[in-house]
């Protein structure tokens, strides 16, 4: 990426405070309320360093979930949770006959790594399920839980089609990625994207990211990676079932399920009307039957 022209204004290596519109220097984007922001996570560039996980925990003051080893791969984080808002998945593609290791492709490219997070759906099922209004859409088109309103009912947890939101046992509130709402307000790039050393995580305006992602897919196809595709961009897997596009979308090279992503998630609130209507019709039928049975009186 090109260095921004404003970089020349700051030749020193130590600063007295936060630079105005710092994201312009680090991500090439000026953050303004009323516009749509998100992440494009290009998994072909992920090296599995987990800097994003660490940066997220550091900035958001999140405690460790568990400090043991899962024993399944280099993924010792396991899953997104109330305290883990970035999670790097590790998949080793070894499919040799008889279970033994197959021929190793060059550059360790049998490894798939993906930094997962809240997708910040265009039509977020967690928000649509929230009965208190704690979940809301910010001025940056991201989805955030207001901690001073959430009463820990937990309905957003099963509503999420990606298994992202979780209740914290510590404080009894729902937690998930805020897309660094506080940093965006201060003109800063989100912590995970800023810390990503390979630009696998790219922060920016959605329209810009989507065209950048489409170019990247073309480029990869040209290089012979025919399996590259977008997940969560309009019209692609992940952006199905009336969810709309995902503000945090991905470039993948294997089936969504391999990365623990649903191929065709749906918008849960579309089921409210058919279910309620059928239920009330059933009750109306029973009411008529009860009138017929109990009403035959002298």
């Amino acid at each position: 990426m090109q260095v921004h022209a404003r970089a020349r204004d700051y030749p020193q290596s130590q600063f007295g405070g936060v630079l105005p519109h710092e994201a312009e220097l680090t991500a090439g984007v000026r953050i303004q309320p009323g516009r749509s922001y998100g992440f494009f996570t290009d998994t072909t560039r992920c090296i599995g360093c987990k800097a994003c996980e660490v940066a997220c925990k550091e900035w958001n003051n999140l405690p460790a979930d568990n400090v043991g080893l899962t024993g399944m791969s280099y993924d010792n984080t396991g899953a997104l949770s109330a305290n883990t808002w970035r999670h790097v998945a590790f998949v080793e593609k070894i499919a040799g006959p008889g279970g033994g290791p197959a021929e190793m492709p060059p550059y360790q490219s049998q490894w798939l790594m993906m930094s997962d997070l809240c997708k910040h759906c265009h039509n977020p099922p967690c928000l649509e399920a929230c009965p208190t209004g704690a979940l809301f859409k910010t001025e940056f088109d991201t989805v955030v839980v207001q901690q001073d309103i959430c009463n820990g009912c937990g309905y957003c947890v099963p509503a999420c089609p990606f298994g992202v939101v979780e209740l914290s046992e510590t404080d009894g509130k729902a937690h998930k990625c805020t897309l660094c709402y506080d940093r965006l307000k201060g003109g800063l790039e989100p912590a995970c994207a800023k810390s990503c050393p390979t630009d696998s995580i790219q922060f920016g305006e959605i329209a810009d990211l989507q065209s950048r992602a489409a170019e990247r897919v073309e480029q990869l196809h040209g290089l012979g990676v025919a399996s590259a595709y977008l997940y969560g961009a309009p019209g692609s897997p992940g952006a199905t079932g009336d969810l709309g596009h995902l503000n945090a979308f991905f470039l993948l090279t294997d089936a969504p399920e391999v990365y623990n992503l649903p191929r065709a998630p749906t918008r849960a609130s579309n089921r409210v009307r058919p279910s309620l209507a059928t239920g009330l019709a059933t009750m109306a039928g029973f009411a008529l039957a009860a009138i017929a049975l109990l009403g035959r009186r002298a």
Partner: protein
Amino acid sequence: MSDAYRGETYYGRSQLKPSPFGFMVSLYIYLAGLSGSAQMLATIGDLFGGRAARGMVRRGRWLAMLGTVCGPALLIADLHTPQRFYNMLRILRTSSPMSIGSYILTTFGLTSTVTAAAQFLADRCGWRRLLGVARAASVPASVAGAGLSVYTAALQSSTSTPHWAVSPRSLAMRYGASSLATAAAALSLGEHRFGDPRTARRLDALAFGALLVEWIASARARGDLRRTGVAAALSGSAPERLERAAAGWGTLLPAGLFGASLLLGDRGRRASRSASLLTLASGLALRHAIMLAGNESARRPAASFAMAQPRNLPHMES
């Protein structure tokens, strides 16, 4: 017919998070349905049943207080920040059955309390005029009661939990039918014990019909689960077996007993009582089995990946 999901998973780890709801919420769903439907039957008895239904009307109004008192207590106890329970009425969100349900429960609770209080004063102090107040309050209470009997199905279906999400219509029918069957069974018990045997028989007939509707709706739900591949991922699990028992024997056995009792006439009281008790037990078992099966389906990636296949878009049921 579709089969189990046989594709890859991420080390067999869950793709979804199960709801944090457990037995307290299952019990709430059960009591809400029982009370809501009891209020509806009491109002119908009051408006159309004449003198003979008076006892049933009174007992139905008392039964409605069960949900009014226990419902909010169970729900608030289940919150993880219970001191903020009032935030449930901070907004109305029509896309959230939990928000809709908060208003249904509030309306039901207030109107049912007025109904029961007026009935109590009319009975105890002889203020017969208050029966008009009871009747006026019981009409909105029974409309809310009908909602209370079924909105919990919409609440579960409007999630991404596979077992609940794939059969929104059938689940609502199951809950509606089970709510009505349990309410009729409870009122029939009271009628046999203290009241009018003819009213009891009519309630038995109602419970009999509702149990058959529940059985049919459960069979439909089973079809939804099979078609979407969710059933295969759950087969053999403990919640699935409990659900089968509750939806199968739990409906057919009491329905058979109610049928026998209706054929036997006056000699059928014991059969009716057994049927009522079985209906009441299987209603709770059904709610809890569906709760557990839903949570288990969210834990199993084979269930969530089976549901989230393009062939299950956009309408997941027939």
